[in-house]
């Protein structure tokens, strides 16, 4: 029911909504009022009116405009910076260089390796060096052109192979050794035994090129250091809390309690606005320097320099299966091209190994991951953070296994499903698990059994193919990014005698609807219209900390916190009302904007009156709620990445039509089933699924962070090849296929009303499903993402020439770099009687000499 439009009325609440369900919070209500209904988002009206104010829509009197001068060299030391000419330009009001902000920062405590402006070392084309503020943006831009920078060029490290081969020059003086940032080596169970028992073993290599978020909104911030000595920054950030911490660190001695971060409504994030950024810190510092508000709006090209998107990852996967296709052992290597800085890279590295075990039961599992520093824009989290690349590898490999054994790929997966309510080899706790139902849905919907392998030919000579793949994703990371014992999410509720309920929460709505989630949940618990609730979010002065919009954590974590705060408020109001109308509090129902007696619904009052009564009796009404995820079962080093309150599951079938002459293919249709636990709002959840399919198809078909690498007479140019909306290809309306979507509701006890994540999971299976569909159509394997037409063509040509019908990295050292991972950390699996700790403590891989 859309509340201000009676036009949309569909279906009663789904069967799970009955009061006997454990996640039903209010036994007096036999049906959910708002949860599960397609209610308009709380901010929908302002968004369709053009009234939502994004960061660049804000202005202030006397505001200055700031521009950053960025490195034109991929790798160099800064010998000298001369800003004197720029300073003379009329209208220039402030100039900052690296020495003004010497304190390094970074999103993870283990990699504080960035500077607001590079003091002496630039690590990629785009690394900022100077900030200039002026009365007009053009003046600042012109002034930047007058800055003279003397570079002392260093050898460029262009990718994983170069980084592995060249210990010098180092990009950073920390990390494992040379240009290796991280090395992880975790062994669960007995690999040798697992492979011993396998009837079939195969080893494959895969390459997943990096790609980026491409939010439509270019990053923007407005900073104001006011006359009271307090700093406010409005910024398009997904993580105001983490930005707050970074600002406090770099702007020291300005105390954290004088810094206020306000996350403005987001014009798209997808993970790209989750790090604290140079321009944010510079704007703040510049405002302190000039005493005036300072705005910075990045250009599209600069957004590419900020990046933090999908890591390019080279992978090698060895899998052992029984005759019937049961997985006995998996040995997985990943090599991540991290770009110039740490960012979330440590977590990304672990994520390339963490979730393989959550979809299918893997008895014995060995994961080795290495992350390298290279002279590219830094990589970080993008929708599906770190789990997307290995998912591609595993799902394509399983397709090959099914082919080898002559088993239907859908059946192979169904036979291997990780059991619900179980603990995996790497100690991840699975709760509800609806993957089986997902697979059955897409298999049935797509006509999988009837249509697969038929090689139907379209009118224009294209060959049809179907491909299937599955995935799982976290509903929030189990640990915060910095070690602390505090809640991950806090909600404060204020009830006013006007009947207004205000929800305060540090979360940020990046378009996924997290503000609305707060409204729906509180509205449901208190029985009031969600659109009457005021939601205040993402303001470090006003709202309790929530860690931010990343890792699909918001619905589950803020939802649980909001539920707790709302239940506490309901208790207070119920107490007041019970006394007044002399009915036991336990018999009161909060619904339809009223509080009434379950046995005699006529006896009761409006919610507003109820709040007034409670306030008169008990004083001003305010409650809090907070949420901390359950403790992880993993106790080994590295076990902190992967645990989550719950896991969502998805299965997809993608249909392709391949032109065998050119390799060009289109995707006419996609079937997607997603186990969401419960859809708090089906229309909005559908939008998340469709958006994930879209972004997945972009990654599968065309998106890539391609680099231009060319040398001429000793000069090497190495920079992003295509940093524009036109040349970084992302699908338009014409590439978007028809989608048939199924929502599987398998409620999870850890989610509010049983909800699990939906924003990221459905992206993951798309790329492998496309690769598998191409195989179904033209019998060639593209073991690289994107699965571009050129690669399909090359593989078809190889097939026609009688060579290996495949496009992908080689299995030998030309494909896979030779890296010494050291001794593995050995952990007994739960079924071996393990307790989540490691049985050995290998001395950490040898440290680099400084």
């Amino acid at each position, binding site marked *: 029911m859309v509340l201000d*439009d009676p*036009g*949309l*009325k*569909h*279906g009663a609440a789904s069967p799970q909504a009955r009061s006997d369900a454990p996640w039903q919070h209010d036994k007096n209500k036999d049906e959910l009022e708002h949860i599960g209904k*397609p209610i*308009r*988002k709380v*901010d*929908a*009206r302002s*968004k*369709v*009116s*053009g*009234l*939502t*104010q*994004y960061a*660049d*829509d804000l202005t202030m009197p006397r505001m200055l405009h700031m521009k950053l001068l960025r490195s034109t060299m991929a790798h160099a030391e800064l010998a000298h910076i001369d800003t004197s000419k720029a300073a003379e330009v009329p209208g220039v009001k402030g100039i900052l260089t690296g020495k003004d902000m010497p304190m390094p920062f970074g999103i993870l405590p283990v990699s504080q390796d960035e500077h607001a402006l590079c003091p002496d070392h630039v690590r990629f084309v785009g690394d900022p060096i100077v900030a200039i503020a002026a009365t007009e943006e053009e003046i600042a831009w012109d002034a930047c052109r007058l800055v003279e920078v003397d570079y002392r060029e260093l050898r460029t490290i262009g990718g994983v192979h170069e980084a592995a081969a060249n210990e010098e020059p180092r990009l950073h003086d920390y990390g494992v050794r040379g240009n290796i940032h991280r090395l992880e080596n975790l062994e669960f169970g007995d690999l040798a035994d697992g492979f011993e028992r396998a009837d079939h073993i195969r080893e494959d290599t895969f390459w997943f090129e990096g790609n980026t*978020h*491409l*939010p*439509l*909104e*270019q990053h923007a911030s407005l900073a104001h250091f006011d006359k009271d000595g307090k700093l406010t920054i409005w910024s398009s950030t997904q993580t105001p809390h983490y930005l707050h911490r970074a600002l406090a660190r770099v702007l020291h001695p300005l105390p954290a309690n004088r810094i206020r971060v306000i996350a403005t*409504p*987001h*014009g798209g*994030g*997808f993970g790209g606005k989750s790090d604290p950024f140079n321009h944010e810190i510079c704007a703040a510092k510049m405002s302190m320097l000039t005493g005036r508000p300072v705005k910075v709006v990045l*250009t*599209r090209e600069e957004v590419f320099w900020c990046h933090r998107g999908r890591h390019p990852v080279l992978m090698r996967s060895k899998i052992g299966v029984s005759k019937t296709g049961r997985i006995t052992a998996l040995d997985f290597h990943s090599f991540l091209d991290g770009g110039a800085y740490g960012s979330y890279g440590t977590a990304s590295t672990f994520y390339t190994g963490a979730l393989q075990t959550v979809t299918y039961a893997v008895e014995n599992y060995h994961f080795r991951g290495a992350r390298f520093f290279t002279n590219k824009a830094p990589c970080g989290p993008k929708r599906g953070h770190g789990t997307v690349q290995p998912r591609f590898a595993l799902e394509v490999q399983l397709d090959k296994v099914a082919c080898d054994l002559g088993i239907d790929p859908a059946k192979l997966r169904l036979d291997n499903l990780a059991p619900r309510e179980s603990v995996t080899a790497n100690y991840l706790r699975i709760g509800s698990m609806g993957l089986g139902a997902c697979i059955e849905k897409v298999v049935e919907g797509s006509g999988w059994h009837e249509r697969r392998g038929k090689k139907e030919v379209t009118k224009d000579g294209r060959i049809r193919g179907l491909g299937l793949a599955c995935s799982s994703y976290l509903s929030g990371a189990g640990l915060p990014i910095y070690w602390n014992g505090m809640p991950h999410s806090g909600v404060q509720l204020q009830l006013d005698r006007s009947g207004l309920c205000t929800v305060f929460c540090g979360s940020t709505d990046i*378009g996924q609807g997290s503000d609305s989630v707060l409204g729906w949940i509180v509205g449901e618990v208190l029985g009031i219209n969600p659109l009457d609730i005021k939601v205040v979010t993402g303001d470090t002065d006003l709202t309790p900390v929530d860690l931010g919009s990343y890792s699909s954590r918001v619905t589950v974590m803020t939802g649980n916190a909001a539920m707790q705060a709302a239940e506490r408020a309901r208790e207070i109001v119920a107490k007041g009302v019970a006394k007044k109308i002399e009915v036991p509090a336990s018999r009161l129902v909060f619904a339809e904007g009223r509080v009434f007696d379950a046995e005699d619904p006529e006896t009761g009052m409006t919610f507003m009156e109820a709040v007034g009564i409670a306030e008169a009796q008990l004083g001003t009404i305010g409650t809090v709620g907070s949420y901390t995820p359950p403790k992880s079962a993993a106790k080994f080093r590295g076990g902190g990445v992967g645990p989550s309150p719950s896991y969502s599951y998805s299965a997809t079938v993608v249909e392709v039509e391949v032109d065998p002459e050119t390799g060009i293919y289109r995707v006419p249709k996609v079937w997607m089933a997603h186990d969401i636990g419960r859809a708090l709002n*089906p*229309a*909005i959840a*559908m*939008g998340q*699924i*469709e*958006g*994930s399919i*879209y*972004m997945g198809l972009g990654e599968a078909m065309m998106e890539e962070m391609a680099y231009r690498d060319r040398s001429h007479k000793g000069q090497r140019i190495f920079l992003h090849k295509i940093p*524009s*909306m*036109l040349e970084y290809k*992302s699908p*338009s*309306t*014409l590439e*978007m296929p028809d*989608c*048939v*979507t*199924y*929502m599987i509701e398998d409620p999870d006890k850890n989610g509010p009303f049983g909800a699990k994540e939906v924003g990221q999971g459905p992206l993951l299976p798309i790329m492998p499903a496309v690769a598998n569909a191409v195989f179904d159509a033209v019998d060639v394997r593209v073991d690289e993402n994107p699965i571009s037409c050129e690669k399909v063509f090359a593989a078809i040509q190889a097939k026609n020439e009688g060579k290996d019908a495949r496009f992908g990295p080689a299995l030998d050292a030309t494909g896979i770099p030779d890296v010494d991972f050291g001794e593995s950390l050995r952990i007994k699996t739960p079924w071996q009687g393990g307790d989540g700790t490691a049985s050995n403590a290998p001395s950490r891989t040898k440290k680099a000499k400084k």
Partner: protein
Amino acid sequence: MSELNKVLATFQVNGEPHEVAFVPHKTLLEVLREEMALTGTKHGCELGECGTCTVQIGGMPVLSCLVLAVDAVGKDVRTVEGLAIGSDLAPLQDCMADLGGAQCGYCTPGVLMAADALLKDNTRPTRDEIKEALAGNLCRCTGYIKIFEAIELAAARMRGEDAEPSKESIYGS
């Protein structure tokens, strides 16, 4: 006219006159946002590559990042702020809000202006016609489907039909 001084001109935006002084090399996008405080019109590239800055001039959707402001003087300019009638949302806006056609909402003003122009010409657009009309508006959030459905629903309602979204579009299949 060949000097670099500011020009003073009156624009007709959303049926209202706006008198502003601006230098002649400013685009309509800059003047709308920075001189008239009509920040509903967004920008994502300023090079004609994304569609975020779409406005209508004389009913025709164009990219305000590539139109000189001086060329819009005296013409009928419409922006997203002009769609609602008083405080009532236009049917297209209503349907976009109901179906979740605006996720982050950043592409929404441009999408609305392109879609509004389509519906003026074509009261019964097919899905393919909608896709074609929006082929210059990128959206990174929605996968476009909720936008298509919202336009179809709005078209039906604007034809006076008592239309509702299909069950599959809201609850899945």
